[in-house]
């Protein structure tokens, strides 16, 4: 497959090589078709694109800056540029996707957004977009996550969203996804399922990547202005489901930049997963020898997901992107180091990407003098309580 065909329209089957597809009950198939058609229509409509761009600009704070991390760069002997999704409204890149999907849901005449959430970031973003457009929002969240992320639950409540505790399975994100799907089956006429990452049945992985593409496209232009070579040597992003990475990579897949996705050691579907089907799509999935899906474990709640977007599986297989893992320990150290050298509190999720860059620069795996563009997917205020001991 030519480079150019990578990260383009996966067609009506929603396949990225062996991955993707639409593994959902028959009851949901018409809804998936309808959403695909609506998205194709909207995406080709300059009016919709304008409204989306305006909302992202005037409301969500785009474009986000590309910040040179000067002091950390000096320490590492590289040039590190940070794409600042932490400055986007609600504090992460999640808003790019939900604004897009909420506008689509409105266009489709839906009155309610359904969403799953783990740490609560996507839930907050969904509640936000729903409030902005006057839609209702119902957010499914594992009971254990509700306990761990009380503040985000409260944020959603203040925003007027209903948060439904999920008490099945491991009572975390993957069960919230199941429950959201189940609820969607039962309310597909008036509800729109606002998926939080490049996962789920076609057209979601593609559509979410397209809504997140703005990260990569902005960064590409900003790198052009900032770097003598115009293009960085490395483009790095963390990978939970993989939406910030997909949106970032989409801006650079046609360049010479090396693409690196960084997962949590305890949630490394791209590295330790096997091909499987979960939540409506075929991809790499963490599972035991019998095919039961394993719970992911990471200090970053947003990376506690046992799957990975199907397009990432495809990028990995073809070698266009590589995927690495870092440990919780490295992540906390990276977070604190960035805070102290640049005054930026990155989310634990984003700190995975950073931890990899630090390690790679310090071991020489990323050569001295290299230029690195890193997507800082969100802010770390939500994570402060989780950092028990300062390294």
């Amino acid at each position, binding site marked *: 497959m030519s480079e150019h065909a990578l990260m383009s329209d996966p067609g009506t089957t929603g396949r990225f090589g062996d991955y993707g597809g639409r593994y959902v*009950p*028959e009851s949901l198939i018409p809804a998936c078709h309808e959403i695909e058609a609506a998205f194709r229509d909207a995406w080709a409509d300059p009016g919709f694109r304008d409204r989306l761009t305006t909302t992202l600009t005037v409301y969500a704070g785009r474009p986000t800056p590309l910040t040179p991390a000067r002091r950390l760069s000096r320490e590492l002997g590289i040039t590190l540029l940070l794409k600042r999704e932490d400055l986007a409204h609600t504090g992460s890149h999640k808003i790019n996707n939900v604004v897009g999907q909420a506008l689509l849901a409105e266009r489709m005449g839906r009155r309610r957004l359904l969403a799953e959430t783990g740490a609560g970031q996507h839930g907050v973003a969904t509640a936000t977009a729903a409030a902005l457009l006057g839609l209702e929002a119902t957010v499914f969240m594992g009971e254990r996550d509700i306990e761990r992320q009380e503040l985000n639950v409260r944020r959603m409540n203040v925003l007027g969203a209903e948060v439904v505790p999920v008490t099945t399975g491991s009572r975390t994100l993957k069960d919230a996804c199941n429950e959201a799907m*189940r609820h969607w089956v039962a309310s597909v006429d008036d509800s729109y399922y606002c998926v939080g990452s490049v996962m789920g049945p076609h057209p979601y992985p593609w559509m979410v990547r397209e809504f997140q593409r703005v990260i990569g496209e902005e960064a590409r232009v900003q790198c052009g202005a900032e770097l003598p070579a115009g293009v960085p040597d490395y483009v790095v992003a963390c990978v939970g489901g993989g939406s910030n990475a997909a949106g970032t990579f989409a801006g650079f897949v046609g360049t010479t930049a090396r693409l690196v996705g960084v997962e949590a050691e305890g949630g490394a579907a791209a590295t330790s997963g096997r091909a499987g*089907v979960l*939540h409506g799509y075929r991809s790499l999935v963490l599972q035991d020898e019998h095919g039961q899906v394993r719970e992911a474990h990471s200090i970053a709640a947003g990376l506690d997901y046992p799957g990975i977007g199907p397009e990432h599986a495809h990028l990995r297989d073809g070698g266009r992107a590589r995927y690495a893992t870092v440990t919780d320990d490295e992540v906390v150290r990276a977070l604190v180091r960035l805070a102290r050298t640049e005054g930026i509190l990155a989310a634990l999720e984003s700190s995975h990407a950073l931890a990899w860059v630090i390690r790679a620069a310090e071991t020489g795996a990323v050569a001295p003098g290299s230029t690195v563009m890193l997507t800082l997917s969100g802010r770390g205020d939500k994570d402060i309580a989780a950092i028990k001991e300062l390294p």
Partner: protein
Amino acid sequence: MTLEEFLIARRDAGRSLLVPYVTGGIRPGWTDVVRAYVDAGADAVEVGFPFSDPMLDGVTIQEASDRAIAGGATVAGILAELAALDVAVPLFAMTYSNLVFQRSGAAFCAALRASGLRGLIVPDSPLEEVGELAGAAAAEGLDLALMAAPSSSPARLREIAGRSRGFVYAVTRMGTTGEGGGTSPAVARLGRDLKGLTDRPVLFGFGVSDPARAAELAGHADGVVVASALMRRLLDGTGPRELGEYVASIRRALDHREPDEQYAPLPRHRRRPDRQDQVGPLPRG
């Protein structure tokens, strides 16, 4: 005889079909439940292979799945127990794509066949994803049943009716498995539509919670699948004998149901000849 031939034969004998469900490995000696079902008059038994993330199942079957997995249930283990079981009606598997594709659809189907199962149903493999698996099932002489939903378009219903094997699984509602829910005109219409499209048995599933409801739904099709109502009882401690009695009560309701005024019998399609060449007994054990 294939699953489909078996069910058609029974149906054509004037019988409303009854297919009870059990989650494989839900308790030690769970195959006794299968036997009790058969003794109580089941026409086939659906055996669930528990999956950690059963997207289309409501709380009861989720709980049953969790309990079976926690108890060590695996595909291989369940198949081994089924292979040792000798019952007079066909058994078929219900599970999710991730278990089916662990190695490959072909490997999964071969294993089912080796253990004597006659078919399978995979709720998260709709028409668009079912191609490879359908070939593999056919190659092993297994019937891969497809699901039809109230939301399916006429064109899709036609395709489902045409590509489903064994029977067509018509879901009574937009929702997950689970008890409760009334009959809506849409359900009657779905049954009628499907029966107009195929001579294969059409079974209703989802919310077949008691004998009366079973009888009512059977009025719109060829029979019913009963799952959550049984699994609820099993989870609550009911043993095989009492479960069998409950299935028998449904059997009786189906056998003696009043002619349903809403149900105008449709002309039977001629049996389609397209798979006759595949018929033949499956090896056991």
